[in-house]
């Protein structure tokens, strides 16, 4: 592989999130994505940024019901990821600029990736 990009991942605390994001915004980074991973009993949130193919990732681990502040005040376009986060993981996100209120990705079962659900997939065709 000749991919010449470096990826850094920094773990941060929930209360530092907005400050860190603000700093990256000021540093000319663009928002690449916000992703979420369901671990056992908690979620790992990845806020990914990029500047000139330098990939930086802020990592946050939160509990099931923890409210996460929206970064859509800093990155206007963050609402898509935050709505997605809410709709598939059930993470409450506070203050999204365009809040779809659970209708961004409407699924048969609410919050399919929620760690508190864990009843296995209720798929009709499995």
């Amino acid at each position, binding site marked *: *592989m000749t991919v010449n990009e470096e990826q850094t991942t920094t773990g941060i605390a929930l209360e530092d999130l907005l400050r860190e994001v603000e700093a990256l915004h000021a540093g000319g980074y663009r928002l*690449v*994505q916000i992703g979420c*991973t369901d671990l056992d009993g908690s979620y790992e949130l990845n806020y*990914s940024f990029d500047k000139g193919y330098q990939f930086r990732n802020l990592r946050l681990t939160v509990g099931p019901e923890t409210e996460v502040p929206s970064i859509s005040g800093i990155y206007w*376009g963050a609402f898509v*990821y935050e709505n997605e986060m809410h709709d598939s993981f059930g993470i409450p996100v506070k203050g999204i600029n365009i809040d779809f209120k659970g209708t961004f990705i*409407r699924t048969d079962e609410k919050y399919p*990736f929620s760690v508190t659900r864990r009843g296995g997939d209720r798929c009709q065709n499995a």
Partner: protein
Amino acid sequence: MPERIIVPFGPQHPVLPEPIHLDLVLEDEKVVEAIPSIGYIHRGLERLVQKREYTEYVYVAERICGICSFIHALCYSQGVEHIMKVEVPDRARYLRTIWSECSRIHSHLLWLGLFADGMGFENLFMRSWQLRESVLDVLEDTTGGRVIQGTCKVGGVRRDIGQEKLDEMHRTLDPFEQQCRDLGDVFLNDDTVKYRLKGLGVITKDEAYDLGAAGPTARGSGVAMDHRETGYAAYGDLGFKPVVETTGDCYARCAVRVKEVYASIDLIRRAIEEMPEGPIDVKVKGTPDGEYFSRAEQPRGEVIHYLKGDGSKHLARARIRTPTLANIPPLVKMLPGIQLADVPVVVLSIDPCIGCMER
């Protein structure tokens, strides 16, 4: 006061081949508010990683979207390869590049056709799709599938292209490029097309960057950002310069794609010329353990496969961020103030691939 026209636009709508819904609020025909609503084709295939072996998941990955299919598979494979530290043979890297560029051309021609259709230019639609068929023929001859190739796998590719076929492809590239240039001329120079596109749905460079726009949407606004520059597959060997336009309107986004078609043809030509000999795959052993944000440049922009393995045959998590999702915020910004007639044009100008976006 009943001052405004409110129209549900989609999900079933003839100009949108895929379902997306907009609540359009109009004054006469001017859009004053347009809120998109998606989720009509959400399948939930990210979860399938837990049910499919990591090698089998390639088939799912390439069915995330039938247009960018090959590059999804490529991005996924590269991610797994990176986690598992698998070195792909050179020939496979070149073959991957050729197929990537073929699918980029086919995607762009497809998009140009749909775009022409969105402007009510039926003949141009027909012509674009007619040209696209010759790319599909090449894909079918070399991979066996028209839109879903199924040749990429973890550790390399499943099929080789024989020298004879490579020569034939090389021969047909010149006439094909000429045809594409004739087509591109219409998009770039026709008066009615220019009338429809110039100054429409403008996104400035700063806005585009700040909103996280990806691919031609960003490049049309002057953001020189193209993941092929990072040199995955064979791009590092072949060298590559992103196509950039600066006006940020629909015309610029269209021009970027037209010119990318030419650039892709050139890349294929050089890839064929410099094709190394050797095996096309390596045996992959073991299971992935680790995580990686795999990134690749799709026709629509940068795609990200975040893969996390826990050492079992199944990945623990795959998170796919597709370019269309990144381009939704710019789209929301573009819509207000345009005419109803331009709504399909503007929506199409980000080349929405809802199939990708909804996963």
